[in-house]
């Protein structure tokens, strides 16, 4: 199963906390702005959930 991920870029403050929990999905680009994959393999579910929990702005969501 493929997971769909959405980050509310109005909320995201580019703190990069998510990067440590799910580095295959989230990264900061050269301008220190968040970039992310909008889909990921189900094996990444737990890591992405960790990122969702630890995001200070609560900006990350799974899309049904």
């Amino acid at each position, binding site marked *: 199963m493929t997971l769909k991920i959405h980050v509310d870029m109005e909320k995201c*403050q*580019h*703190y*990069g*906390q998510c*990067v*440590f929990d799910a580095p295959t999905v989230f990264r*900061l680009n050269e301008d*220190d702005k968040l970039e992310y994959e909008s889909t990921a393999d189900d094996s990444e579910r737990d890591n992405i959930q960790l990122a969702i*929990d*630890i995001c*200070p*702005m*609560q900006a990350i969501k799974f899309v049904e």
Partner: protein
Amino acid sequence: MTNPVVIVGASMGGLRAAETLRKTGYAGELIVIGDEPHAPYNRPPLSKEVLAEHVDHAAVAFPLGEILDDVQWILGDAVVATNLDHHTITLASGRVVDYGTLIIATGLRPRRLDELGRPATGVHAIRTLDDAMALRAELNPGARVVVYGAGFIGCETAATATKLGATVTVVGKGEVPMLRPLGRQLAEDIQRRHEAHGVTFLNNTRIVRILGDDHLTGVELDNGQTLECDVLIEAVGSLPNVEFLEGNDIDIESGIHVNDTLHALHANGEPWANVYAIGDVARFPIPQFDPKTRRVEHWNIPTEMARKVGRQIALEHGDDAEAHAAEMAKEFTPIPSFWSDQFEVSLLAYGLLDQGEDVRLLEGEVGGDCLYGYYRDGKMVGVCGIGMRQKVMSYRNKVGLNFEPE
């Protein structure tokens, strides 16, 4: 074990503990008790964007997943007493709850200065959503605001109030705001950036009296001067919420003392087998730094402690003794991380900056983007930057005293 797991404190720490218990397979009775009327919500925005924009519960509420469907929430009722020998807690409503395992996540409350005078309105602190809503209602354009306390929450609130059109003075007893965690050079730099936005700093200054009967009229300073103001925000530090534990044989000196498995301790240092403390209220060891215990009031800590405690308890209730033993043996080595937004200054830091004796500007420049290292005994104990996020992040796993330099 039939008695429920009871969590006291329905904020981030309590919520993440409940989630972890369920995710790790604990299916028994689970009760979360909080004295605030609200379901768990995110606190950091209270001094930042929420205060600036629109304050209500929906704006900050944590999502509650299905996994929590059969959790029993008791909100708006405080725990007022505990009997750890008999495994009972008593609520303000008079209700008594038995527990099998107790997780304490009661956090901190702002230190208040009632003894200096207490007008009926105009004096505020920020810890809860209700605090932020009450303050927001008085932060009108043109309001004269005094912030007492030049720590992170004080400085963030000063920035937010200025953005809302208030005229803000920060009164602080130190030589520079945020001196202790940040070090002089960076702290002075941030003070200047605040001043460029019109914030006034009165350093080395204390408030000795708060004036006004019905509404606040001003504050009297220790230099004899009186500052007229409409709003006073007390941001002079916090006290751990531990009074409901008094009368038990438990070490609650300056927070609840816990060991490396986050068990609360008797006065003699022996652990209570079924009592844990997590989050801001806990005083715990971070072994990669030193053997001391400390409270760390940063956002990532409640979640990391909650996960460890939740897994330990769930596995203890399961039938895989080996998995439980492995979880108990797993070292708890969280890396404190925090951020702070004040005007265009957006700080990101890892480690324990206040342990640094020697602070060095590693990259960038004063007044612009910059990155500071905090060293003790030649080892990096913290890193903090304005901008330069990726570089700050690259140091995250290198802070601590036990790490040998590469």
